[in-house]
């Protein structure tokens, strides 16, 4: 069967697995759900009240039935109610999500636009200073946790420039694009730092591999100039692993957003998840985790499409 068709078939299957995992892991939390939901206040409930609540939330039913109901709700966009906010989980998530998505995409753009040229430069300069410098920087970048980068940026900005990235009030992309970019640029650099390093390393390695391939020799034999050999013949082939990496890394970006949003006090989905865990707001935790995983899966599907666009052997079915 065709590669893309197979991906499309397994997609809902994996989604189902994800929903199962999310649902049942939340149910594994020790103690009954009402205590978990209401915390210490649950102690004040009478048995009758408890029963009523259990019926209301459907937790007197067998687990499978509960899962079915929950999944049915999820399919209709009902992720339940947040105890902390007293509002539908989906509405809260949709409020917070644009920021996180923008952050992730911005850092991806930064990482790719720095990483790919740097990797190509290093690969085509073999063992000369440019290559060595790029390799050292990439190695250091890959070894530095995001929060270290973020704290160093904040430190440098505040101590040397007396500038503290605006925290608290947040300008959205639509209301004030410039202020929004100003607020997001440093978090995005923080988030994209390690990603840029791995893009650089992969681009370099892949470019080196491709440059030793037979068809590059063919291109040279027919008189293709060096610049065109690199950009026209080698790069489309060398980008294939970079595209794969980008799909995987998008997940790390969504995950890393938790930390970066925490450092820069950005009201995104990552911080929402973290707060929800702190507040034991399980419907919200469940919703956030599910939503992020769904986005990650969609991006990976898009990456596979890009992959096929880039590689005719996949698009047209290699033998």
């Amino acid at each position, binding site marked *: 069967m065709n590669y893309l068709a197979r991906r499309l078939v397994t997609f809902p299957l994996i989604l189902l697995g994800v929903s199962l995992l999310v649902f049942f892991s939340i149910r594994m939390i020790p103690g009954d759900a009402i205590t978990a939901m209401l915390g210490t206040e649950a102690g004040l409930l009478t048995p009758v009240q408890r029963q009523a609540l259990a019926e209301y939330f459907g937790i007197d039913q067998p687990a499978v039935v509960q899962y079915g109901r929950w999944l049915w709700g999820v399919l209709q966009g009902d992720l339940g109610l947040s105890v902390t906010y007293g509002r539908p989980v989906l509405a809260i998530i949709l409020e917070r999500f644009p920021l996180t998505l923008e952050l992730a995409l911005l850092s991806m753009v930064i990482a790719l636009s720095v990483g790919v040229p740097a990797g190509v430069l290093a690969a085509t300069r073999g063992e000369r200073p440019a290559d060595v410098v790029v390799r050292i920087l990439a190695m250091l970048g890959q070894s530095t946790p995001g929060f270290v980068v973020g704290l160093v940026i904040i430190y440098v900005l505040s101590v040397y420039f007396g500038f503290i990235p605006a925290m608290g009030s947040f300008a959205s992309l639509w209301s004030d694009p410039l202020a929004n970019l100003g607020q997001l640029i440093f978090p995005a650099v923080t988030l994209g730092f390690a990603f840029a390093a791995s893009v650089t390393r992969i681009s370099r390695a892949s470019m080196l591999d491709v440059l030793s391939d037979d068809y590059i020799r063919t291109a040279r034999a027919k008189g293709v100039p060096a610049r065109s050999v690199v950009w026209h013949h080698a790069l489309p082939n060398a980008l294939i692993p970079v595209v794969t990496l980008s799909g995987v890394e998008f997940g*790390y970006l969504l995950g*890393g957003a938790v930390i970066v949003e925490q450092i820069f006090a950005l009201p995104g989905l990552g911080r929402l998840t973290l707060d929800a*865990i702190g507040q034991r707001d399980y419907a919200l935790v469940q919703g956030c985790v599910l939503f992020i995983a769904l986005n990650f899966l969609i991006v990976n599907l898009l990456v596979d499409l890009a992959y096929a666009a880039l590689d005719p052997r996949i698009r047209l079915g290699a033998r």
Partner: protein
Amino acid sequence: MRILRAIAAHPTGRIGAGIILLYLLLALCGTIGFTPHNPLQQFRIDRLQGPSATYLMGTDLFGRDTASRLMVGIGQSFLIAFASVGLASLVGTIIGLLAGWWGGWLDGAFMRSMDVLLAFPAILLALLIIAIVGPGTFTSVVAIAAVYTPIFARVVRGPTLSLKRREFVDAARTFGSSERYILTRHLLLNLVAPLTVQVTLALAWALLTEAGLSFLGLGTQPPAPSLGLMMSEARNLMQQAPWLLVFPGLTIMLGILGFNLFGDALRDILDPRTQRRTA
């Protein structure tokens, strides 16, 4: 032996190995209590001291010695990293090997469940597990192991698929060798090299993830020292006491760098593809 010699001759592998050895030594000293000061003791009069002869890396808000706390923190980080990578590589290898070897529905079932785990960004999966079990050392181990198990399964399954089509496995079948013999002598033995590389690199990632979790306050719980937590505490003091930011930050970076350098060197040495390129 050959590999150790090769690493000693490898320019960056040597540096990586040196860093790892140094950290292991520090971690050992930290764990058995062989530190300059008691890492938990609060020297109240010496709060927020800069680096000095007494306090090599200064003290924190409570007057605790940063250097001593870092040593214990390294021990803690390494413990979690080694335990989680050990667990992940064991489970992942078994899953990847069996999925690749038997193929069919078992392969599908195993690898799709790995895909489900991979659908969660690393930190998020860890957060989910911590939300369930509650923070702590053991939780960190399980959470990080859950993140890297599918990666090991994939790393093992790929070569297993290609190894099982190799002619030496065909040859073994023509002799009538048992499945167990083929799996252990022909497959596992040839997987040792890629696994070693992967384990080293996974140790670097595990350190990274552990530091992130404890930075968020979801890893090792205070007052026990941990590298991420120390960074988190330094946040609000960075203007008065930058050393509280600088030393833990450098410690984390250098440790991860060590494993990355070592892993890269191992790959250069063990992977015939890169060998050909450098030859």
